[in-house]
């Protein structure tokens, strides 16, 4: 919603509720001028014209000059190039062939196994490690983009003392003196602050340090970690335990504000399991049922069969009420009265859970308070799910602790002057610590402050020493994944700058400044080699495989302490809301997480799955709340709570619980780099130790200012046609090919003037299962990394010029206040009758013999006729020189197998033709055909849910050919006779019959359906 007109809620509601209508934005519903323009013109007005600061006259001058020189362009000789071979050949390196190394990507301390692609020693791309339990070959956007973080030109490059460059030896000497002074106090003044640590080596080092200095303290704080879950487990069981879910075993799932498909250490695994459990093919027509309760729409909420939007404080009441209904002996208090409106919903969920005793699952979200986690544990216990769908294990963390208490204790010690030496490893507490701790102020009472971090951040200027951290791609380390499986992280390249790993810095603290990360990590694992195996063989195998065999944690028997959580839950009952104020939920950002990826331009420009915003965060409010507050999207509001205030722009998000707002934090970085500094606004001043994940009683005041948000949701829109199709499981059972009838039929194959081309060899095609896609965006970033796709910046996104070759369309359908959400990834369709081809005057886009719609950059002169004629709007034009041709370090990330496009050139999805060619060449050399699954596109490989399948449709046995024969398969805009090679499998929902009746069931089967088909 980008216009400043007041919203007419009644009209919008009526428009949204039109049967069978799927919509992408409120503007589209309102049918405003701007929206029409987007639909008809593809780009907003004047986006295609030159209206920059450069004057028209200057532009004409330049044009004249370039025209005069244009004719000579073809006569230039190629500049001389040099070939620089090795002096000593590197082991295993064959020039022109990439190598893959197993390692791990860690987020909030927890590992995801990856395979890193290396071209002549350059890490260029990250893929999931198929033999790693949390990845299984899939990745998330953070993992995909972390390789750009490695080449980030704004990484800290030198060791500094008070901003002056110093050598490592000076640091070692100085820190040695500070530590020596601690000897007498047994380390009483030494504090180490880390993020969550699962690394066995780092844990061992810190424990040894604490043995040497028993009075020193190790603090951990992570703004976005699992603190609620951690403390909740202690509340429920009296000790810290980890919880894993066995999604395939569950028939009924309830998520209590748990975005388990997109967030958290096991989300990749759960996405895979969830999609597999709902895969309806080869005669199987069973699906689990997912209920989601949450304040703000998430990816998991979008996958729900039933979603209930509740204010953050109501979520806790809901949990108490449900727990008491399920037999957990607690007092629900006034919860029933507060949730009276949802009585029926809660009743159905209760019965559905009870009916699936032992095969149900209650999952509490990481942002939920400990009490909710404890109640979720209790519910799973009473539903007899433990051991079946829920498994408890020992914690994977080396030293689980209540991190909120930990950082508060540190702040208290600093205030009291008890800290002489503060060593911050990897964390950015000045930005992230709860506002009421006044960390920045208290920190300055510490005489010596040291920070190890990847980049110069908010904490850096307040530290004496700053040590640049070695990126995980350039240092040895280890970490554990959600199930305990350990991975040894191996470096692919020597540190680009003077980076040191956490292991080396802690070793220096302990007095061993010469210890190498390699030896430190090996030391930890030396004792772990299985009996009868030599350590070196064990080590090589573990490093090579990316998993250390046998390190997964086994189930642990725990018993519920019912008395405790009863008391706790009662105490946690939140106060009621006063009118005029909001409850504000604070969440990590779907693309830049807690702000640590703020300087990653791939992630900044990635449209957030639900809001489709780029480059900014916003105060997300529902249409009703916006109406009540008198604000529209783009209005800047001031939010005030507890004497602190922040200002940010509003975004109207259907599905947001009334009376609540959600703000993604991580934006508003004050020191991040050329990309991240200044993007968005920082809501963290509202966050205190008392209000970690939501703030109650926030006063809202509308300011007079407006702020332009770059939202991609209206871009590349294909009008109100039935593109993303869905139905219910019941409909599917009755009429399996329902999706084919939701749109106009495709014309007869022979209805053509020209004879059909016969594809004799390979015929590449793709099938995308909308029932599996969780909308995580990994495909978009994977494509960007694989195909050297540039970022364009907020200004250009506002003009609709983003370059992503695959976009993830998000559709709403149903009621305005509680819409259902559908995701639809849209790459190039590779139409057999491609409308883009005949209109190109220079033959720059032509068809290959295998059915690929080729784009020939060197022929393209940029007429954009093809873009104009593409009904799917998948072609992207380089309006300006978007690729960075000047920053040296960014060149390192480029895929050498794909052209780096310049300005004036059209580009689009190629089905990763470089991978197709590589696969074909390999098979031809081995004198065989390409095996199904041998060639995988980047999007397919990244997809954690296996939603994308690519292959040879001429091969009847191939998976893609089988999916194309699935009854749910349909092509979008098939009526145009484009014969797209990319087709879709319709989304299915499995609503509870009783709730379906009151909510208005799936979109099909309703009286007005036939009418829509005609549209």
């Amino acid at each position, binding site marked *: 919603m980008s216009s400043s007109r007041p919203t007419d809620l009644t009209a919008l509601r009526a428009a949204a509720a039109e049967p069978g209508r799927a919509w992408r934005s409120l503007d589209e519903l309102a049918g405003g001028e701007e929206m029409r323009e987007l639909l008809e013109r593809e780009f907003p007005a004047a986006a295609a014209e030159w209206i920059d600061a450069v004057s028209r006259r200057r532009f004409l001058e330049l044009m004249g000059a370039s025209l005069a020189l244009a004719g000579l362009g*073809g*006569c230039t*000789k*190629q500049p*001389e*190039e*040099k*070939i*620089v*071979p*090795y*002096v*000593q*050949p590197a082991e295993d390196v*064959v*020039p*022109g*062939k990439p190598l893959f190394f197993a390692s791990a990507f860690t987020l909030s301390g927890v590992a995801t196994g990856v395979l890193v692609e290396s071209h002549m020693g350059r890490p260029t791309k990250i893929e999931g490690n198929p033999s790693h339990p949390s990845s299984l070959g899939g990745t998330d956007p953070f993992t995909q983009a972390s390789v750009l973080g490695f080449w980030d030109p704004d990484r800290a490059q030198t060791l500094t003392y008070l901003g002056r460059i110093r050598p490592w030896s000076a640091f070692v000497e100085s820190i040695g003196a500070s530590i020596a002074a601690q000897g007498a106090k047994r380390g009483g003044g030494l504090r180490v602050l880390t993020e969550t640590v699962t690394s066995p080596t780092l844990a061992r080092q810190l424990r040894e340090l604490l043995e040497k200095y028993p009075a020193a303290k190790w603090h951990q704080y992570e703004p976005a970690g699992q603190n609620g879950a951690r403390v909740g487990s202690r509340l429920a069981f009296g000790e810290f335990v980890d919880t894993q879910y066995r999604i395939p075993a569950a028939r009924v799932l309830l998520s209590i504000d748990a975005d388990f498909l997109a967030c958290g250490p096991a989300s990749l695994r759960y996405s895979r399991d969830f999609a597999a459990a709902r895969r309806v093919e080869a005669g199987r027509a069973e699906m689990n049922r997912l209920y989601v309760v949450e304040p703000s729409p998430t990816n998991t909420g979008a996958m729900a069969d039933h979603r209930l939007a509740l204010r953050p404080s109501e979520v806790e009441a809901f949990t108490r009420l449900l727990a008491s209904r399920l037999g957990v002996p607690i007092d629900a208090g006034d919860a029933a009265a507060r949730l009276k409106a949802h009585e029926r919903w809660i009743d159905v969920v209760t019965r559905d859970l009870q009916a699936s005793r032992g095969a149900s699952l209650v999952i509490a979200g990481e942002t939920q308070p400990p009490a909710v986690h404890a109640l979720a544990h209790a519910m799973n216990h009473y539903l007899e799910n433990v051991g079946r769908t829920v498994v408890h294990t020992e914690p994977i963390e080396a030293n689980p602790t209540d991190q909120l208490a930990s950082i508060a204790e540190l702040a208290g010690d600093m205030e009291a002057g008890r800290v002489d030496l503060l060593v911050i490893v990897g964390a950015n507490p000045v930005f992230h610590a709860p506002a009421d701790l006044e960390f920045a102020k208290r920190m300055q009472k510490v005489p010596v402050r040291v920070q190890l971090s990847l980049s110069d951040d908010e904490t850096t200027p307040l530290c004496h020493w700053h040590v640049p951290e070695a990126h995980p791609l350039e240092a040895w380390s280890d970490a554990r994944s959600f199930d305990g499986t350990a991975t040894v992280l191996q470096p692919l390249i020597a540190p680009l700058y003077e980076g040191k790993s956490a292991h080396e810095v802690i070793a220096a603290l302990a007095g061993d400044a010469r210890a190498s990360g390699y030896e430190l990590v090996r030391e930890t694992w030396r004792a772990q080699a299985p009996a009868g195996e030599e350590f070196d063989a064990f080590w090589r195998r573990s490093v090579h495989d990316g998993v250390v065999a046998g390190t997964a944690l086994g189930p642990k028997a725990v018993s519920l302490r019912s008395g405790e959580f009863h008391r706790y839950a009662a105490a946690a009952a939140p106060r009621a809301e006063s009118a005029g104020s909001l409850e504000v939920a604070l969440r990590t950002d779907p693309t830049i997480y807690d702000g640590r990826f703020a300087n990653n331009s791939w992630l900044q420009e990635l449209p957030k799955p639900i809001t489709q915003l780029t480059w900014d965060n916003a105060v997300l409010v529902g249409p009703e709340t916006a109406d009540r507050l008198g604000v529209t999207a783009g209005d800047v509001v001031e939010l005030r709570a507890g004497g602190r205030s922040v200002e940010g722009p509003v975004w109207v998000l259907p599905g947001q619980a009334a009376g609540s707002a959600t703000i993604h934090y991580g934006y508003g970085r004050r020191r991040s780099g050329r990309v991240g500094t200044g993007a968005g606004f920082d809501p963290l001043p509202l966050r205190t130790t008392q209000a970690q994940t939501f703030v109650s009683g926030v006063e809202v005041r509308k300011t007079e200012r407006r702020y332009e948000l770059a939202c991609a949701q209206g871009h590349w829109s294909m009008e109100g046609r039935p593109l993303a199709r869905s139905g219910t499981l019941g409909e599917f059972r009755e009429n399996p090919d329902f999706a084919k009838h939701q749109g106009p039929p495709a014309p007869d194959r022979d209805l053509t003037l020209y004879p059909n081309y016969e594809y004799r*060899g390979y015929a590449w095609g793709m099938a995308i299962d909308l029932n599996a896609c969780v909308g995580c965006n990994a495909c978009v970033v994977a494509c960007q990394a694989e195909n050297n796709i540039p970022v364009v910046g907020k200004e250009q996104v506002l003009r609709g010029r983003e370059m992503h070759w695959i976009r993830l369309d998000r559709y709403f359908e149903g009621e305005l206040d509680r819409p259902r959400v559908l995701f639809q990834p849209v790459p190039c369709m590779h139409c057999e009758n491609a409308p883009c081809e005949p209109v190109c005057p220079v033959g720059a886009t*032509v*068809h*290959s*013999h*295998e059915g*690929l719609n*080729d784009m*020939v*950059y*060197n022929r393209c002169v940029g007429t954009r006729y093809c873009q104009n004629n593409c009904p799917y709007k998948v072609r992207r034009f380089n309006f300006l020189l978007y690729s960075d041709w000047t920053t040296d370090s960014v060149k390192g990330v480029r895929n050498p*197998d*794909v*052209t780096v496009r310049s300005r004036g050139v059209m580009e689009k999805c*190629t089905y990763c*033709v*470089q991978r*197709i*060619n590589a696969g074909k*060449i390999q098979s*031809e*050399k081995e*004198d065989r055909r390409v095996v199904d699954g041998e060639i995988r596109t980047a999007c397919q490989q990244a997809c954690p849910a296996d939603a994308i399948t690519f292959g040879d449709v001429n091969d009847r046995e191939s998976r893609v050919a089988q999916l194309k024969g699935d009854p749910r398969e349909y092509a979008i805009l098939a009526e145009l006779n484009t014969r797209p090679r990319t087709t879709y499998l319709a989304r299915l929902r499995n609503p509870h019959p009783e709730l379906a009746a009151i909510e208005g069931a799936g979109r099909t089967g309703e009286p007005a359906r036939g009418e829509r088909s005609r549209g």
Partner: protein
Amino acid sequence: MPQIFHRSTNTLARLSIFGAIFVIGLLSWVGAEINRSSYVTQARVARRQPVPFSHRHHVGGIGIDCRYCHASVETSAVAGIPPTKTCMKCHSQIWADSPTLEPVRESFRSGKSLAWTRVHDLPDFVYFDHSIHVNKGVGCVTCHGRVDQMPLTWQENSLQMEWCLNCHRHPERYVRPRDKVFDMEWEPEEDPLALGLRLVRDYRIQRLDSCSTCHR
């Protein structure tokens, strides 16, 4: 009103109109010829190198196999330029004091690579793969010419797209048995076209002229 132009101007006008066709044609022909000339393509122009390496001596004279130095030609897109160590395997023993080879020894001592001038330089939007050509029976000589007779290396052919397409459209005219790929002096003993057609069938050689075969 008197005539301004004499009657003969009509002839001149006609001449220039029809003449223009020839002039434009001539200019186009000249342009095309320039574009195909060695001036633009650098074909048959020997390049200056840090060490005047002679293929005539090493290949023609001593008989070293191509793959001794260009080791990845059968497996990778690039044939590979040998590391300094490959040179030093022999030249630590023979011609070990030659002043001509000082840059090689210097590179080996210092660890700093030799910087050779690229002789065969395809445009950056072209993705050529040596391994598949070699495996399908395209001989080194077919593209690179008689390297064994080149004192300093030059590029034998234009490397322009029309030249590539000659073979991509009619591979039977150019392929040879796989075991003769590295043979500099091979001549077919039978009818070249019949052999070519047989090899195209046996090796399952395709006529690949889709743009994305080379451009992506």
